């Protein structure tokens, strides 16, 4: 019972191994060597998670479980190895060829990850718009529709914690891909893709509203869900959920964000 978290964790990583095609012998993406991690950092440092200490989230008082010293490193999406499978090899080849045709440097794609049958291209923000235009216009790619743009905050202690994800759909080829741009919270600027995908207008406004990512070149980047004069960006991890403690039958129940978290 007590090692439930670790078993499920390992199970997950085992499952990932099959999908992601990790190098043989490597059991977990969390076990990247320090050299590999340094390489990650140099390439933009795609860290997607927070490191965890202990097992039950016990802080500030004695942990009697014996698992207080357990350290789980932050999850780093592993770069995919060829062959990717699921037709992603052809797709990536087409994409690289189209990028070359349109003078988009290959370095625009910092990392490619294939996970659970979905492909993610981690993109440098300088080339995002050109890349989107390539993806939309190239006859072999034809990602006509931008399904969704949204933000993810990976937590306060994570480098480049704010990520903007773009879910593109090719109706011609019935494919979906994900682009992901990681930025620092101090320099949360991403070029707007509204000129390529007009539908991104409200999505980007929502991402600005909730995460404080500035989309440069957006026609009217204003708050959309929160009031215009709102302070702060509600879906950032350091923004409190709010709520007040509730007393029930003599016991005080803290608000959800201050309750004990187990992992």
């Amino acid at each position, binding site marked *: 019972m007590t090692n439930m978290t670790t078993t*499920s964790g390992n199970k997950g990583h085992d499952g990932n191994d099959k999908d992601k095609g990790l190098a043989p012998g490597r059991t977990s993406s969390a076990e990247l060597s320090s050299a590999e991690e340094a390489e990650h950092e140099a390439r933009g440092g795609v860290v997607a998670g927070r490191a965890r200490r202990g097992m039950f989230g016990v802080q500030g008082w004695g942990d009697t479980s014996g698992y207080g010293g357990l350290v789980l490193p932050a999850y780093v999406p592993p770069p995919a190895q060829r062959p990717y499978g699921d037709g992603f090899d052809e797709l990536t080849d087409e994409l690289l060829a189209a990028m070359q045709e349109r003078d988009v440097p290959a370095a625009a794609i910092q990392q490619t990850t294939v996970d*659970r049958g979905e492909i993610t291209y981690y993109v440098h923000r300088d080339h995002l718009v050109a890349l989107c235009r390539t993806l939309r216009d190239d006859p072999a790619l034809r990602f006509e529709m931008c*399904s969704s743009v949204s933000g993810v905050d990976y937590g306060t202690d994570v480098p480049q914690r704010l990520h903007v994800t773009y879910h593109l759909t090719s109706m011609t080829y019935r494919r979906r891909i994900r682009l992901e741009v990681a930025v620092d919270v101090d320099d949360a600027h991403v070029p707007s893709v509204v000129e390529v995908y007009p539908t991104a207008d409200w999505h980007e406004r929502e991402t600005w509203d*909730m995460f404080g990512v500035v989309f440069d070149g957006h026609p009217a980047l204003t708050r959309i869900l929160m009031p215009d004069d709102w302070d702060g960006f*509600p879906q950032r991890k350091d923004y409190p959920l709010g709520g007040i403690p509730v007393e029930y039958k003599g016991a005080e129940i803290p608000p959800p964000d201050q309750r004990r978290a*187990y992992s």
Partner: protein
Amino acid sequence: MNRRKDRKNTSKNSKAKPRAAEPAHTVGSGTTDTTTQTAGPDPYAATSRETTEGRVYTVTGGDWDGMLDDWRHDERIVVNMGPQHPSTHGVLRLVLELEGEVVTQARSVIGYLHTGIEKNCEYRTWTQGVTFVTRADYLSPLFNEAAYCLATEKLLGITAPRRAQVIRVLLMELNRIGSHLVAIATGGMELGALTGMTAGFREREEVLHLLEFLTGLRMNHAFIRPGGVAQDLPDGSDAKIRDFLTVMDSRLPDYDKLLTGQPIWKNRLRNVAYLPLDGCLQLGVTGPILRSAGLEWDLRKVQPYCGYEEYDFEVPTSTDGDAYARYVLRVEEIHQSLKIIEQCLGKLEPGRVMVDDPKIAWPAQLTIGSDGMGNSLEHVRKIMGQSMEALIHHFKLVTEGFAVPPGQVYFPVESPRGELGCHLVSDGGTRPMRVHMRDPSFVNLQSMPAMSEGGLVADVIAAVASIDPVMGGVDR
């Protein structure tokens, strides 16, 4: 000419009558002598004079052209509609810039129903998240649950058992019928077809009664859970569903009689709120609006999930791209959903409704006890009296929840309004790192200006009704 002469006489005669009999159009009081105007080219044109309070018009006839000419082009009218307005489909605020009755610019303002569902999910277990997302688009709660649970299952690398998949399809199609009926009903109400509303809500009540029987709740079911569904269908479901199918089959033709062929309904909707295919793609519009523009894009067909590839149904399309086509498609989709529900009944074979993995599946089966729905007495007896391990396991799963391996997925399903995508990010914990619902209402609502600018203000209502935005989903 004779008529004009008569009216002139009347006008002259009215001069002799007391003030109360004067035309109601007179603006200002004690203004001018109308008889002095009879020599002019248009004796009924408005006259005006300057006073210390400004310009005072006297309008004597039924002809407002002269007066409007003065106002037109140098005076734009900005009309604020909503957020509390019976015709804006919820707490939606429209800001319309008008020239006369023509809308020159339209913008929608949203956020009045923002409830922080996505943020709240980050502080609950993966199972509890269902209770939150089901409240996003409150007219299609089962689709929110399905998208969220299918995404969670993809993260976990599990598949729900077959019986659960069939139940999900059954419930989703029931929900689709209910949602489309509300779209037709509220759309009819907003356009003045009140019988459309009463009929639509009457049939929707049938859907809600059936959903209540099957899931326990009319709305916000939280019935679909990661790994399957909360519990099996109750005894007698088959007969109830068949009764529902019979009722719907007998009542749906009424909509054709009441609305489809009705001239007023057609005139209000035909060639109104036109959005062609390229506009749909640029604006990311999906669902009946996209299909009304001619693209046969239905995720149940192009990217099947929950075993939709086994069902025999059609995806109706049209090339008209107007509000009427969307109405017709919704009615046709109701027919198709009934067809799918009937096939579901044939596929419901006995079996588990939750994955056979004690680390994920809820340990207790729910039953009705003397104090309502709860854990089955058998299970409570076992964990309290016999098995300490089972008690600990139950406690852990209920309080801590199950851990989900790190990674992210995007899972789209075809909701009544279009592509409902769920983007989930896990960092390996027992709570989601990020839950994002790509709600079709949110995206489709962006097409409102494209549909209504350049049209009449009355057609804005038809446009919004044909988009069918649900503000719970738009604002989340």
